């Protein structure tokens, strides 16, 4: 009886949403056309992770990437960009690693105001709903991140680059 065709896979691009859910929490969601097992694999296999974490369109070069996907394991990403005088490092520790369903890590490059990121992989009918939660230690820490223009994964030096991308996005 149900005439709607929501279950059929659609060739349309899935939408990425971002919302400030509370004073200190940002939530990003996206659905992928594949099982959680595969999305998790693409996230936790360093050779695969490197292919998508630094989108080509951002003009960034990933100089090095190390990740030890175990509880207490560390990760470290080093980027360079022509506009940044020196390479910039992002690093932290994995607090939870639950295959195919959950990853939690700290972001320590920002010191004590750094957020804790939780990613959940929820499989629904062959598709995977990915939810990324960034929980900041305080409202002030999230406000500061916003005010500084740093987009969490991108350092402040790249703010201008971000601006350019916004204008490119707007004219596309």
């Amino acid at each position, binding site marked *: 009886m149900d005439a709607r065709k929501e279950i059929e896979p659609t060739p349309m691009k899935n939408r990425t949403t971002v919302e400030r859910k509370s004073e200190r929490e940002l939530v990003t969601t996206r659905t992928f056309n594949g099982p959680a097992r595969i999305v998790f694999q*693409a996230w936790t296999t360093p050779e695969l992770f490197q292919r998508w974490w630094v989108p080509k369109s951002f003009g960034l070069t990933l100089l090095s990437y190390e990740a030890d996907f175990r509880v207490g394991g560390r990760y470290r990403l080093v980027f360079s960009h022509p506009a940044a005088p020196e390479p910039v490092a992002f690093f932290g520790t994995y607090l939870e690693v639950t295959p195919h369903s959950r990853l939690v890590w700290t972001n320590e490059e920002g010191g004590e105001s750094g957020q804790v990121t939780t990613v959940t992989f929820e499989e629904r009918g062959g598709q995977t709903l990915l939810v990324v939660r960034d929980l900041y230690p305080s409202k002030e820490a999230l406000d500061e991140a916003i005010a500084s223009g740093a987009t969490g994964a991108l350092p402040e030096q790249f703010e201008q680059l971000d601006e350019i991308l916004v204008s490119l996005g707007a004219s596309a």
Partner: protein
Amino acid sequence: MVQYAWAGFDDSFAALSDATRRGVLEQLGRADASITDLAEKFHMTLTGMKKHVGVLEQAGLVTTEKVGRVRTCKLGRRRLEEEMAWIERYRQLWDARFDELDKVVEELKQKEKADGRKKRD
């Protein structure tokens, strides 16, 4: 989107060039406050604080509302617009990442299918 980011940019810049006014914005980011509260906090006369709040209000960074005899200050719409613009930039970063991740997921799916076929053969 880009246009509104520039509209009033000069006002904002002038408003933010003063350390007290930046302090007031920071304070209001934590909680709304009356002009009297702010004057006390920044060791200023009521008249001096009124001037600062006036500049911030002009720039759209602060709004005020008078209830009874107390004028309460809170962060203005421009501040909220900045937050929305930031969230949109942040969203674009993740969206670009996830477009690439889509490709990796598709590739892995194809590979699994091919491997499955090989096994059956």
